[in-house]
């Protein structure tokens, strides 16, 4: 494990995918950056998710789309990125809904082709005539979260940045209203600027500074089957599920109810799954009848944070830049790190207007916003 430096130009708290990408972007700008994490890189939901890269709603999306096809080359490590996605449905109302979503995306300039049942079956050989149709997104894609988080960490090291695992941030030291250092059990790291990308823990770290960073954590579950024959497009969602077929062939799918959990400074002691895995198995078997015989060989849960409106927070207060992508950070990561880099270095995002993602929108947020939404453990 690397020695604890006495200081760094920028300290990033949180080696999730957003913090790692931010560190990588800062290192690309030649900035002396240290990313610290309570555990191992990408150990929470950044490394345990559906791998989707298709967030049409985000102001960062155009940059995300520009970057993903280049990421293997830019990082120097494989991410398993594959372009395009398909959403199939076996329920008329859901199919109509997604056809409407497709028309909305097309109107935004992201092409979506409607699929009738025959076309859908041709593109998704594991389904059958129970599939009524779907949409083919000629944008977006998917990648391997576990491989990608390690790729970011290694790439930022290759540029001279440092990643300190097993080094939790205990507190942020301030001087004159600015972040001056981060305290860890191994000592303190002084910094000129700070990035807080600590996921569910971000709120706890920022509260002593008088910054209300409204996030709350939940546990979401996925299941994995043994490999199936490779489909032409692995990024297939539908029937209430999100996920992908990996390049190895495994079907990896999640969806359905989540569980709100209490957040502690040290993070979750365990990330159990529940019998929800049986409802996931049912939906995968329904979506892919020709794969229903495949064994489920594991399941997992990831802990994600959500903001009150489910939208990202990307903001800077003095020399502290704060970032959460509210539960959909993986796909946005190439662009979110760029935005964080811009906020740290230039004070403003260079490639997108992101003012509506600031903390100011929560000025009137009721203190009991979690209770109002039923978002409590």
């Amino acid at each position, binding site marked *: *494990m*690397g020695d604890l430096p006495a200081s760094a130009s920028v300290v990033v708290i949180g080696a999730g995918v957003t913090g790692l990408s931010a560190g990588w972007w800062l290192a690309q700008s030649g900035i002396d950056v240290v990313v610290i994490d309570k555990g191992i890189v990408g150990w929470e939901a950044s490394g345990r998710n559906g791998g989707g890269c298709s967030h049409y709603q*985000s102001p960062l999306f155009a940059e995300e789309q520009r970057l993903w096809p280049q990421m293997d080359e830019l990082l120097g490590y494989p991410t398993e990125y594959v372009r395009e996605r398909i959403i199939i449905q076996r329920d008329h109302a859901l199919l109509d809904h997604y056809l409407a979503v497709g028309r909305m995306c097309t109107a935004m300039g992201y092409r979506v082709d409607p699929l009738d049942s025959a076309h859908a079956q041709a593109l998704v050989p594991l389904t059958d005539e129970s599939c009524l149709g779907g949409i083919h997104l000629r944008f977006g894609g998917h990648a391997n979260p576990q491989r990608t988080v390690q790729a970011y960490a290694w790439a930022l090291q290759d540029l001279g940045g440092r990643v300190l695992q097993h080094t939790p941030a205990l507190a942020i030291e301030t001087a004159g209203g600015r972040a001056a250092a981060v305290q860890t059990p191994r000592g303190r790291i002084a910094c000129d600027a700070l990035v807080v990308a600590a996921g569910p823990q971000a709120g706890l770290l920022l509260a002593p500074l008088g910054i209300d960073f409204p996030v709350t954590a939940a546990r979401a579950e996925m299941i994995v089957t043994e490999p199936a024959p490779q489909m032409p497009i692995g990024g297939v*969602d539908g029937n209430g599920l999100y996920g992908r077929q990996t390049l190895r062939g495994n079907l990896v799918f999640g969806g359905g109810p989540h569980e709100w959990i209490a957040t502690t400074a040290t993070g979750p*002691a365990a*990330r159990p799954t529940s*019998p929800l895995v*049986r409802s996931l198995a049912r939906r995968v078997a329904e979506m892919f009848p020709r794969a229903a015989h495949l064994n489920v060989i594991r399941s997992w849960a990831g802990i994600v944070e959500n903001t009150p*409106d489910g939208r990202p927070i990307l903001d800077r207060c003095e020399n502290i830049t704060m970032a959460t992508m509210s539960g959909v950070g993986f796909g946005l990561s190439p662009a979110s790190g760029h935005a964080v880099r811009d906020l740290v270095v230039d004070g403003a995002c260079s490639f997108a207007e992101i003012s509506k993602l600031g903390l100011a929108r929560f000025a009137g947020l009721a203190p009991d916003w979690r209770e109002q939404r*039923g978002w409590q453990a």
Partner: protein
Amino acid sequence: MRDRHALDGKIAPAEAHYGTVVVGAGDAGIAAALAAAGAGDTVLLVDENPVPGGLIGSDVPQFFGGRMTAAVQNAGRMVEQVFASNPALAAAFGAGIDVRLGTAAWGLYANGPALQAMPHAQLGLADTTRAWMVGFDRLVLATGARDLVLGFAGWDAPGVMGAQGLHALLVRYDALASRRVLILGSGGLACETALLAQARGLDVAGLVEVMDTVQAPAELARRVAAAGIPAYLGHSIAATRSGIDGIAAAILRSPAGADVAIACDTICLALGAIPATELLEAAGIAAGGAITLAGDAAGPAPDLAYVAAWSQALGRLAPADTIVCQCEAVSRADVLDVRPPHYLARPPALAARTLATLAGDGPAHPDQIKRLTRAGMGACQGRRCRTQVACLLAEAQGVPIEQVPVATLRAPVRPVPLHLLADWQETAAMAEGWDVWFGIPTQWTPYADIGTPREAEIVANGGNMHV
């Protein structure tokens, strides 16, 4: 206010509830079941045997090593054989215990810090026709022990198996397709396996021990010697010879460096066994309170210093392309260099990364090896490679194996087909509250529409817009 997309209230109560549920119908499990029944409890006793032939072929739950006869494919015959080999089962039936054979326990769910949605603790079961959940006041896990596996050149050929696998095929199933077996190890497990095999008519080619002395207690060692079974002390396996039927010979390396060929069709790893506590590990909970371990599942961990000595001795002779993970075809070199699977490129930056550099950023976790190399990500659920990966990590980091975390186990701890695991009777609340992702409608509003009249229209379109 309730979040209608949250999990609470959506998981059904178990379809049956028992005072005591016992998993595993070995001696300890049957004793626990009989004791509970004798005390007037309602008792369910499940045992995964006979394991379906397909799983036996996948080395689940033991390392069967492909040395089973076609008899394992005959389900009716296998049930008869399980009864014939375990007379105490009759007593369990006689005591009014609900005995279910061929029924695997694949998941244990109880409320804890990050799971509060369980209406009560439940055990997930599956046979070859369906999966279901049972509730319990007391749960006894008499799940036995599983094989401890280390690899060497050629160990992925049919005929290399574990002592638990050999015992199951020989005694429980009477379906072992071996004639001449060489046993690795000389401790109690190895000596007892040798004597059992010989008593059942197998030719025992000998014991191989990397240490300089027989590890078993003196009396047991004396019995093995008296049986004419040679012990190759200070020897390790340098290579194997295989033909169309798998293993044909083991090439041992003597302390003097000479190679000795031992003809055999089976090489049995008998270096120790691991208490089969997968259900607890996957649930992230410890035994205690309502849940107890019994029999070999409550037994001691294997002698890890001994395992490490074997791993190092085998590793010194193993070529770089020696397989570690059979499911995903991951070799020693793949693990030591954290190489990606064959379908991915290995660019120069990645080629400069190794297990040692990973450990330098560490301490490294076996789950990192899983995600980078895929070792342990296959259909056997890591049973055959977990110990090997832990040993390699310990060696790369220069630490005792005890200090290496255990690769994570996850439910289902037995492979269960999608259509069987599926809950076809899920609660109405589950279906009604289902959303692809959290069901927060404002999450999916296109950014340009935020704060415009179109926003309300899009939010009204519902939360199920995750693409």
